[in-house]
């Protein structure tokens, strides 16, 4: 959510009313569509979700170029999926009003079931990189915390890795030796660099220069538990636009685990190793950085969850690629509390210390989020 964005460009002091209404209008239309579509769920092949959220962020400093000191935001994420025999269609549309109003088709995919548990998808999808991007998507309610880890930030929130790809995705799972193995292989057009990473826009597929992105991920879920351990790797080519005449060849790899200790304590840990080769007219540089986070969640009774997360990186200072994009969260420590109001609503509060590449500040985030129906 944008109240967590530290992207330099996000500094509109006053939102032009036109832009606000341009965003609000479709959001209200989408909301109305939800109300109309909800009874259609009687058809069992269809599934519809609607994730609203309202958030407020306060920052101790207003570092030059960073987002505003106080910021409110209303989000709406609409999700629809349907099955027709072996065919499956899936769409996710995300809209927000606040610092930077937008409505975007985040996922638009169609798949064919190759065999039970395995599908070949075509379209724009979330890159199966790390853990966060494909387990929470844009549904704020589903993630325990308010903020996403900096390394998993979406492209338009100052992200430095390709979170959306347009192309083909082989996705599936198989039970083997008493464990569930999940696999993903993605190949398609990744983002271009144009004052930030710009993924392929569904409504403007021909706009921008997009090169290949490839990601593979394998995870292991032992026996009858919900624990997961996984590895992933990727190769991305980011062409630079005229404003940013730098082409980047990015190789990355990483490990993740989501481990449950009993029924009350969860641990999520991810580490990324990223190598970048930057080519600009007359010069080529190679750099690498590492980034990771560890998040601990402790259930306190049935409705409360206390959590904390530490994010850190090495090799980020002076990294030309990260400087090119700006707003990268180099380090963050946060603690928070989540209260599940009802079966489908949550209120969360978070306090964090944020260290961007050039600035440090404290931040308080509050959020209400829900899922309907």
């Amino acid at each position, binding site marked *: 959510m944008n109240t967590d964005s530290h992207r330099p460009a996000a500094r509109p002091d006053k939102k032009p009313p036109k832009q606000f209404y341009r965003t609000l209008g479709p959001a209200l239309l989408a909301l109305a569509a939800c109300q109309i579509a909800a009874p259609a769920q009687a058809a069992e092949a269809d599934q519809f979700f609607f994730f609203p959220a309202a958030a407020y962020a306060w920052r101790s400093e207003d570092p030059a170029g960073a987002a505003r000191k106080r910021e409110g935001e209303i989000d709406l994420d609409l999700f629809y*999926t349907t099955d027709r025999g072996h065919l499956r*269609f899936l769409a996710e549309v995300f809209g927000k009003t606040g610092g930077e109003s937008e409505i975007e088709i985040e996922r638009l995919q169609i798949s064919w079931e190759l065999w039970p548990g395995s599908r070949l998808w075509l379209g724009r999808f979330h890159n199966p990189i790390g853990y966060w991007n494909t387990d929470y*998507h844009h549904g704020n*309610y589903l993630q325990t915390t308010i903020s996403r880890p900096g390394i998993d930030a979406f492209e338009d929130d100052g992200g430095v890795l390709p979170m959306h790809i347009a192309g083909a995705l082989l996705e599936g799972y198989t*039970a083997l030796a008493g464990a569930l193995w999940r696999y993903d292989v993605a190949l398609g057009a990744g983002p271009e660099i144009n004052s930030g990473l710009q993924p392929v826009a569904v409504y403007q597929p021909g706009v921008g220069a997009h090169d290949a992105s490839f990601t593979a991920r394998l995870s292991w879920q032992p026996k009858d538990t*919900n624990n997961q351990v996984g590895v992933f790797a990727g190769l991305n080519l980011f062409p630079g636009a005229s404003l940013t005449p730098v082409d980047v060849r990015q190789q990355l790899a990483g490990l993740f685990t989501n481990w449950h200790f009993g029924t009350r304590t969860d641990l999520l840990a991810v580490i990324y190793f990223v190598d970048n080769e930057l080519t600009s007219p007359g010069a080529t540089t190679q750099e690498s950085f590492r980034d990771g986070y560890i998040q601990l969640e402790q259930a306190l009774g*049935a409705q409360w969850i206390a959590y904390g997360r530490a994010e850190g990186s090495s090799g980020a200072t002076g990294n030309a690629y990260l400087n090119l994009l700006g707003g990268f969260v180099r380090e963050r420590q946060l603690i928070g509390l989540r209260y599940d109001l009802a079966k489908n609503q949550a209120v969360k509060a978070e306090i964090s210390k944020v260290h961007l590449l050039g600035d440090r500040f404290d931040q308080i985030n509050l959020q209400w989020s829900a*899922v309907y129906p």
Partner: protein
Amino acid sequence: MRRFGYVALLLTGLLVLSAGHALAGERRLVLVGSPELRGLDLNAAEIRQLFLGYAVTKDNHEVTAAINKSDALLYEVFLQKVIFMSSQTYERQLVAKVFHYGGQLPPTFARPEELTAALNSRPGLVTFMWEDYVRQLSNVTVVNELWHGSIE
């Protein structure tokens, strides 16, 4: 000798009473389906996979799960002893799975007669029930035992 007999009688009575109490408190949670699924032996990992919203293919049956919410205690015991999650976490996981892969949430039934009808009309559908309740039904079969024990 007569005194020994009284003591033995007393002890036997206490034993019977305590055993009776334990048996009265003991319940069995079972996985049930239509009679075609008799003998389908699902392991713990497959059962967990089913109730997390994934289909399981075994012995030429494509098995899917339905959630039985006709009895609050039954659902609570299922969550605690089979799924090992709170209801909020479990239901969040089900939504997250559909949000990730597409597909549908497992069907949920609040009325036992509708659930029983669904078990017979949808091939491969299974759910969880108390075994003593299943004994009253003629058209469903026990596939696996999920848990047994006494409920405090």
